[in-house]
């Protein structure tokens, strides 16, 4: 037998579940899962890895689009396979009968329970929608393609 250094798989999953607090204070006391939202951003916006929280700056606007975006349907618990913890929303993000005339190319997922803190930015090429539907279909929820993964 030998020891092997590793970040434990259980820890990766526990990170996604808010179990560990490395800071000098415990930042949260809630015992219920958070609500996440998805908002669309213009191609001219500057979202990136340095984005810390949702802001209306650069967000799309148009008929039937509500600022802040849509609530993420979250029926999937984080899971681990092949040393990768992964999580994917359990439903697509959908906007119905919207008109978004100014080109947009990104969606920000953020935690609306925790001060709108940013989670991730996904880009998909510049789009417009005219009196139609816009849908973001989620990838397969597994260790290879899941929307958010810790490897």
């Amino acid at each position, binding site marked *: 037998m030998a020891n092997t*250094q*590793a*970040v434990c798989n259980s820890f*990766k999953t526990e990170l996604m579940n808010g179990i560990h607090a490395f800071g000098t204070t415990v930042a949260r006391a809630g015992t219920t899962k958070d609500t996440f939202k998805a908002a669309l951003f213009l191609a001219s916006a500057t979202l990136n890895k340095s984005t810390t929280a949702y802001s209306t700056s650069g967000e799309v606007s148009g008929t039937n689009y509500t600022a802040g975006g849509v609530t993420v349907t979250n029926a999937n618990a984080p899971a681990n396979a092949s040393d*990768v913890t*992964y999580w*994917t929303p359990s439903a697509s993000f959908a906007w119905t*009968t919207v*008109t978004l005339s100014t080109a947009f190319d990104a969606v920000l997922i953020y935690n609306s329970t925790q001060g709108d803190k940013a989670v*991730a930015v*996904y*880009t*998909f*090429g510049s*789009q*417009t*929608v*005219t*009196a*139609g*539907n*816009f*849908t*973001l*279909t*989620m*990838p397969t929820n597994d260790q*290879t*393609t*899941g*929307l*958010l*993964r*810790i*490897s």
Partner: protein
Amino acid sequence: MLIHTTKGLIERSELAVKDIIDEQENARVTATEWYLGDELVRRDVNVNILRGLSLGAEQESL
């Protein structure tokens, strides 16, 4: 069948439809454009995210 457009509800048979498929690095985008004559009266978009993002925690020797 009636289709919601910028001109209100229009019979499907009066509209021409064009699908545009665009392959991005991590997404497949399908745009469906509906035309009344030469005028674009509806545009739907579906983005199929093929692969999400990963936080690398690769282990290296100390």
